[in-house]
């Protein structure tokens, strides 16, 4: 992480060198796949979930091992959210089993999942904007001091730890009582990730952490995904953005229409295949075709307009337009 980033043409953002190498590996299909060995820390085996007559999930399996990033890909409505809600204790599956370290288990509630080390960061619900950084960091797991009726939230300790942890993820907090609303979207997501790591998560489930973010902010979040992976956490990274998934994923699980559409380890797939499996491939090809047609039609219209324009005398407003354009330009420097 401390290596200078490798410049990379056409890269959507500057990636750490290791990641850049991994992207390069996709061009070279001969690059060996490196699946992480060992027992999955968390596994869903043939789980199904129904809402009334609607099949949200049917016979879906997913595994994540320590130090591995499993990218869960799928279009909207593919069942990604349902699956992660099962993994994080919000829903119980109607069929199938959950296993942790190879042992079957039932997650009673999100709290139960958290206590077992399964932490989920939701896209919109990662943090509470009107609460301070330290209060957000510890919400649900507040440190206390004192006893009996005098047991109280240790505000000083919470502020100190939150500041320290934020510093470690690269955000300098002048005042831990600063509202989280003052942080950027990327910083909020990293705060939530740092919180999950601090409370000893073994599995980190990230629900669309980058989809609402700008390019730079997405890079910040992806960097922390890699960091969590290096720390030995199992990471389930949900996204519909293949460009975000490819650089960080060790394993790719693709859902479409509530069913498993494919599972790959790194190096086995490329971007086009992933897109096609997600169910967006054909649509995109079609769209590209349609756009081509529109463009050529447009080009014809422009040509026609140009022929007409030659007949029209030069507009007397032209010098004025030039001045206006100049005024709009920002001053140099």
């Amino acid at each position, binding site marked *: 992480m401390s290596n200078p980033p490798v410049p990379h043409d056409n890269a959507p953002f500057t990636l750490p060198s290791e990641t850049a190498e991994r992207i390069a590996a996709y061009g070279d299909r001969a690059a060996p796949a490196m699946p992480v060995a060992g027992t999955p820390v968390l596994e869903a085996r043939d789980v199904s979930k129904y809402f009334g007559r609607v099949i949200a999930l049917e016979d879906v399996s997913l595994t994540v091992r320590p130090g591995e990033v499993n990218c869960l890909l799928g279009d909207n409505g593919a069942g990604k959210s349902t699956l992660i809600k099962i993994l994080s204790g919000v829903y119980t599956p109607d069929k199938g089993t959950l296993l942790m370290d190879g042992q079957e288990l039932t997650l009673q509630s999100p709290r139960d999942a958290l206590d077992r080390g399964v932490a989920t960061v939701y896209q919109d619900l990662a943090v509470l904007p009107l609460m301070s950084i330290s209060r957000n960091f510890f919400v649900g797991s507040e440190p206390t001091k004192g006893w009996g009726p005098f047991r109280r939230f240790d505000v000083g300790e919470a502020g100190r730890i939150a500041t320290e942890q934020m510093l470690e993820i690269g955000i300098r907090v002048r*005042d831990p009582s600063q509202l989280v609303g003052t942080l950027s979207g990327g910083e909020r997501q990293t705060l939530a990730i740092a919180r999950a790591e601090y409370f000893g998560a073994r599995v980190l489930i990230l629900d669309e952490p980058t989809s609402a973010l700008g390019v730079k902010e997405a890079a910040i979040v992806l960097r922390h995904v890699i960091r969590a992976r290096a720390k030995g956490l199992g990471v389930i990274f949900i996204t519909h953005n293949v460009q975000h998934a490819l650089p960080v994923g060790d394993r790719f699980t693709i859902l479409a229409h509530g069913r498993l559409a494919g599972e790959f380890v790194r190096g086995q797939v490329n971007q086009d295949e992933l897109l096609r499996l997600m169910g967006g491939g054909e649509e995109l090809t079609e769209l590209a075709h349609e756009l081509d047609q529109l463009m050529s039609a447009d080009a014809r219209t422009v040509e026609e307009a140009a022929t007409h324009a030659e007949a029209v005398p030069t507009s007397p407003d032209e010098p004025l337009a030039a001045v206006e354009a100049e005024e709009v330009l920002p001053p140099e420097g």
Partner: protein
Amino acid sequence: MSAETGALPPSRLRAESPLRRIASRPEFGALIGAIAVFLVFGILGFSSSANLGFQGGFLSLGGAAGYLELAAQVGILGATVTLLMIAGEFDLSVGAMIGASGMILALLLGTYGLPAIVAVPATFAFALAIGALNGWLVIRTGLPSFIVTLGTQLILRGGTIAVTRALTAQTIVTLPASAKDDPLLKLFSANLLTIGTARFNIELLWWLGVVFVASWVLLRTRFGNWIFAVGGSAQAARYVGVPVPRVKIMLFMATAASAALFACITVPQVGSANVLNGTGFEFQAIITAVVGGTLLTGGYGSVIGSALGALILGMTNLGIFYAGINTDWYQVVLGLLLLMAVLVNSYVLRRASGAR
């Protein structure tokens, strides 16, 4: 890690002067408001009280005792209603609860001749049960608490009137003469201190106590952090393991209990209970909270702010009287104060959350 911390991005927050820091606190608007209201009515009351022939005006000890009494009563409700509002819920049944619990107290003491040691706990037990029911209904139905507690408000008020009339054929029930010297009732309504004509009652201590405990719970306990989280986003709170139903039900019980406390203070003072006691106090309590900087949408607010809001209400109510203005104007002024407070709140909040 050291390489990373060395190359840290600078803090995105500008250094803040202590004054600006105070100015972005939720209760700041209420503090300025309280000072302004005090000054305005101090000047108006001073100039006109001589003409009206009052012994001392707004600025006298008697004036202070007057507005502190009003502030204490609405402030006791305001403190718990603020906690509930920060958790994102309303309780429109507190006013009717004052009437209902006051009537239960008076019926048990007067009509049935029970000792206060039985009547007072029974009153609180009734209030806590209705509060829990309010909370349970809101959680269970998932309906807005505004509607659910509007329902319980009507049921409580109507039930109080119907049952009282059925039992006593009256709408006002007087306490027995012995109630005046009952030590337990004195705990709620004793006279604390009399200086000249200025009477300070024990309710002031109750007010301070309730505000202190509510503020301590909000700012210094786990439960308080849960209150903020539940109001900020109940779903986010649930996902991090906050017991959302428990938090809300306990807060509904707290607002109902504060209404019972209000009744236990005022009924022995007056010597009787009226079925209409507490009418309109549900809104006064909400106004107290909003003037004190609490957001109507939940997730943000201050108990200290609500205490200042109660003080503003008390001072305005009495100040108008001392200034020789027709007290019919009280509600007009209250409405203007409320609108001003909402505007100030949204400004303060934008500042605090760094929104542009």
